[in-house]
């Protein structure tokens, strides 16, 4: 029997029981669309984490104060207060693999400009901060090394802050009061948008770290030192040089642990993508369980169909259908069910992912791979779960099949 005829009679057989065929397909539809949507969410999460990490800048190394130890109990990284501005200067001077260094500290508070106010974070930085993070000033200028030395009360506003404090006028050369300390606005940063977690990266004020620590945080040690290596190949070298230098400066004996933590972008990226990969695999495996259930649904309905149509099988055999013809017929029917279900499932999965992106604002990415995978899966399921019922039909004894009531 030719393939076109087999296909035609498969379609006809499925049309005969529209409701039943639809319900059977529904299993596959739900399974495939779940797999597609889950992969899309996983890929989207991975992408945005990667974006976030690359938004840190290029060749960036972050030095954080180490874990505070009190009687052997370690608290989170950054809890100790071991990093100083002199450490930052020393890194700049003595590590040949290091290109730029920006000491960092942080404060938060209310900012007032005229009748407007806004609460935001204030990042104390060095003069090379923008260079390291590959960020640009849109209007005005960035503060200089001189401003940092003299702890001038100047600041650069993020786009969001500028828009909220100065809705109508240019903020350049205006004065803002941060926690009642007046700062002169010298520049506005270019818009950077949201990061992966939905945080507004433009909701920030940058100011010399010296000013922030003296006027706003009263906290003289650094929260972090941002370092850029001379090239990406030099990142591990720079990391070693910084570590050695800091151990020396902090007088750490060779058997003692570091009192600081160094992380580079690649570490962060690997850790983060590993997490999102696990998330993706987890989501997809849960979704594939429903695909499996859909497959069992196909097998179930095909078995019912074979029993119902025993007489038809007998008739076909009596007019000359070989076992192989009957096998193909039922296998094709199962395959048509799963392929139709798969196609609808793909459409639904793609639409569903779009809706998730829109409504929940989660980034989703649909890769060709996930579509090929789920299509392949539905073919596999059709063949795998269709084979047993089809074989059962093909091995029927024609005489008994003809007599079947």
């Amino acid at each position, binding site marked *: 029997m030719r393939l076109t005829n087999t296909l035609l009679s498969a379609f006809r057989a499925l049309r005969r029981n529209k409701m039943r065929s639809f319900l059977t397909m529904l299993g596959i539809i739900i399974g495939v669309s779940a797999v597609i949507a889950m992969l899309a969410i996983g890929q989207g999460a991975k992408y945005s984490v990667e974006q976030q990490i690359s938004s840190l800048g290029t060749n960036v190394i972050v030095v954080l104060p180490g874990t505070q130890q009190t009687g052997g109990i370690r608290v989170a990284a950054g809890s100790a207060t071991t990093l100083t501005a002199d450490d930052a200067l020393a890194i700049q001077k003595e590590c040949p693999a290091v290109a730029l260094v920006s000491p960092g500290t942080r404060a938060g508070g209310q900012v007032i400009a005229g009748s407007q106010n806004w609460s935001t974070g204030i990042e104390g930085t060095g003069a090379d901060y923008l260079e390291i993070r590959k960020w640009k000033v849109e209007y005005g200028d960035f503060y200089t090394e001189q401003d940092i030395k003299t702890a001038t009360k100047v600041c650069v506003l993020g786009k969001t802050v500028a828009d909220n404090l100065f809705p109508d006028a240019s903020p350049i050369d205006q004065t803002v009061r941060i926690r009642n300390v007046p700062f002169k606005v010298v520049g506005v940063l270019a818009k950077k948008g949201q990061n992966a977690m939905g945080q507004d990266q433009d909701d920030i004020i940058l100011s010399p770290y010296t000013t922030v620590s003296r006027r706003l945080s009263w906290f003289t040690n650094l929260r972090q030192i941002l370092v850029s290596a001379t090239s990406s190949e030099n990142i591990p070298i720079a990391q070693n040089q910084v570590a050695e230098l800091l151990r020396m400066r902090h007088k750490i004996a060779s058997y003692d642990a570091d009192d600081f933590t160094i992380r580079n972008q690649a570490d962060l990226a690997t850790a983060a993508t590993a997490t999102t990969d696990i998330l993706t695999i987890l989501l997809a495996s849960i979704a594939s369980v429903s695909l499996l259930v859909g497959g069992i649904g196909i097998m179930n309905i095909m078995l019912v169909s074979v029993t119902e149509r025993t007489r038809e099988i007998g*008739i076909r055999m*009596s007019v000359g259908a070989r*076992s*192989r*013809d009957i096998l193909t017929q039922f296998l094709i029917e199962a395959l048509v069910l799963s392929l139709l279900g798969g196609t609808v499932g793909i459409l639904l999965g793609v639409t569903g992912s779009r809706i998730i992106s829109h409504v929940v604002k989660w980034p989703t990415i649909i890769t060709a791979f996930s579509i090929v995978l789920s299509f392949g899966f539905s073919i596999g399921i059709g063949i795998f779960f269709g084979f047993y019922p089809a074989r059962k039909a093909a091995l029927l004894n*024609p*005489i008994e099949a*003809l007599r079947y009531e």
Partner: protein
Amino acid sequence: MISPGNGRPAEGSGQLIRIDHLVKTYLLGEVEVHALRGVSLQISQGEFVAIMGASGSGKSTFMNVLGCLDKPTKGTYRLDQIDVGQLTRDELARIRNRKIGFVFQGFNLLSRTTALENVELPLLYGSTSHRDRRWQAADALETVGLADRAHHYPSQLSGGQQQRVAIARALVNSPSIVLADEPTGNLDSRTSVEVMEVFQRLNDNGITIILVTHESDIAQFAKRQIVFRDGKVRADKANGSQKIASEAVREMPVIDDEGDE
């Protein structure tokens, strides 16, 4: 057509079926059932044979072997000089497709399929092209006088018409034999005779017909009658008084109700 009489072998090309010492035993649970206990006979091209016997006489088993639906336990069955007992399942299917046409008591048509498509069914398992299939099927329907019902579904046809569709399906591949198993069992007497008329007409055109029936009235339309009892041939004789169905129909009263046709 020449009848070979008392089952004596007809030498030469006319010999279609040759059965020697055929034994068929099967297990029904733990019990061994001897359905056929040594049957030997020959049937030639162009015969019209009625196989008779009570239920349990082995005639249905014999029919299944003859139709290549079942293989003999012992003995040989040669169809067109081919020893059927040696064939595989697929080869048997091919023989059923090419050389044998079946007509069953319950018609056995595919219910949601038109008359024409039912007739086409055997051609689907051969190598006939789509176009040839259509006209061969239409041709076969015309032979049984149902050209105008080609696109009706079985449920829209009377019993007699359904049986004629089944006959058309049996004919469509130009088989050597048409095997009919109680073809009139579900039909009233007038329709039965009408169906027999179709068989006689086919037989006149040279098609070999083997008919299983337990009704002696129906067996009267055959040229040769073989009687089975307890798995053996008890009688095998030419029917000296073959009735002509077309004449018989004319003598029958027309049953006037909303039944057939």
